[in-house]
């Protein structure tokens, strides 16, 4: 069984096609980087895969559950780190996590486990509104890990964070993948995608324009050894700046 399997997934917003018939399959334990310019359809794809949005057409299965029909079975198997830091600001980190622990029906002890895992045990009593972005991001990850999901969706997990926190978060992600968790990652940082992902897909205007391992992509689009994933990305999606591929 594939961890994620997507067939001709399409989503329209008021006549605008945000995601246009994408296809891919992700193996269990893989870190899959999903890259694309702003508005390319990354978040829409994540929303469809996590059951928050209905696809206009096409099919998607996560851990064998259809994202539309089997939504209730799908939910306990996925963890989502959203692109917004959606935590209850007036509650402490621990209370936030305890609330979700009740929803996921996991034991309170697990809250302390994930707090330790993301290195936030010391500040867990403080209210969320006193937290920095980096700390909130750690709590978001802790929340997504509470119920030990099979598949973890990360929507730009390191955006706007300082390099130390970003590096920490990357190491947490690698650790999780080593333990067998499937990770679906969207990011704008090409280095991050290059470093973390087993495979990447580049999406532009709702279509997947390239999908392979970072090494293969670099090799495919340029013979120069110094070529980075960013060069490939710009070549594929940078037409607005007049630097696109011919």
């Amino acid at each position, binding site marked *: 069984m594939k961890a994620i399997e997507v067939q001709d997934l399409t989503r329209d917003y008021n006549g605008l096609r945000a995601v246009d018939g994408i296809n891919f399959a992700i193996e269990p334990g893989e870190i899959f980087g999903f890259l694309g310019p702003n508005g390319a359809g990354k978040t829409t794809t994540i929303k469809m895969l*996590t*059951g928050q949005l209905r696809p206009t057409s096409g099919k998607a299965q996560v851990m064998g559950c259809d994202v539309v029909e089997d939504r209730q079975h799908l*939910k306990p198997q996925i963890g989502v780190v*959203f692109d917004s830091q959606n*935590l*209850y600001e*007036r*509650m402490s980190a621990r209370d936030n996590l305890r*609330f979700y622990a009740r*929803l996921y029906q996991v034991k309170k002890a697990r809250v302390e486990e994930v707090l330790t895992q993301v290195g936030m045990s010391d500040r867990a009593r403080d209210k969320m509104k006193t937290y920095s972005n980096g700390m909130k991001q750690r709590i978001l990850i802790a929340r997504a890990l509470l119920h030990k999901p099979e598949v973890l969706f990360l929507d730009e997990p390191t955006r706007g964070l300082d390099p130390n926190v970003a590096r920490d978060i990357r190491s947490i992600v690698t650790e999780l993948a080593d333990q067998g968790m499937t990770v679906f990652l969207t990011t704008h940082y090409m280095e991050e995608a290059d470093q973390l992902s087993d495979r990447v897909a580049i999406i532009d205007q709702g279509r997947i324009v390239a999908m392979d391992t970072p090494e293969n992509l670099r090799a495919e689009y340029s013979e120069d050894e110094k070529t980075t994933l960013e060069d490939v990305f710009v070549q594929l999606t940078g037409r607005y700046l007049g630097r696109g591929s011919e």
Partner: protein
Amino acid sequence: MKTFFDNLYIVWAIASKDIVNALKNKNTRTNIILMMGMVVFFYWSSTLRPFDKRIDTAVYDEGSSSLTVRPTELADGYTFRFYEASSLQEMERMMGYKQLGVVIPADFDQVLASGGEPTLTGYILWVHRTRVAELEAKYSQKFSELLGQPVRVEIKENFIIPTPGVETSGVYFHILFATFFVTINLVPALMMEEKRTKTLDALLVSPASDGQVVMGKALAGLF
């Protein structure tokens, strides 16, 4: 398969989170304290109701007794005012504005004339059971003073509210309806709050179903 209690547990988890958060909010706390103050005030003021020494009485006379035509002012300043009703039902309806309702038995005048102790059946409005004996004694005394010889006012289960079969039982319906109305009005507000902070997304990917989220919000609104 999830059991009924699992579902209830999730609904309660969502509701209790909102309730606890609301209680932590200074404005809500102030409101609750104000509300409690008002409840206490109204309770206090209603216990003072017979303060002006006036005893408004709705009367249903089963016979045709002489009670209602008697002088109504007592020596200690208490004043009786009688409002006659032509049936028990009408008397119960009139009780909306009176403290006391009495039913005068048909043989009232005879017993009175023979020097016995006639018994009036009393009805009272919105009074706690523990105060019944006290009121019974008070009204018995006042009626005795009024008539110049011993009279008993017996209040048994004659509380107008709640008395089954009387129109006022609609009060329950209104309280229920008002609660329900306030609740369903609060659900969108609570949902919007979640939507504004984008925490609704997190709720929707959690095992809580859409229905449970709404139920949880409704339950929180109920409080």
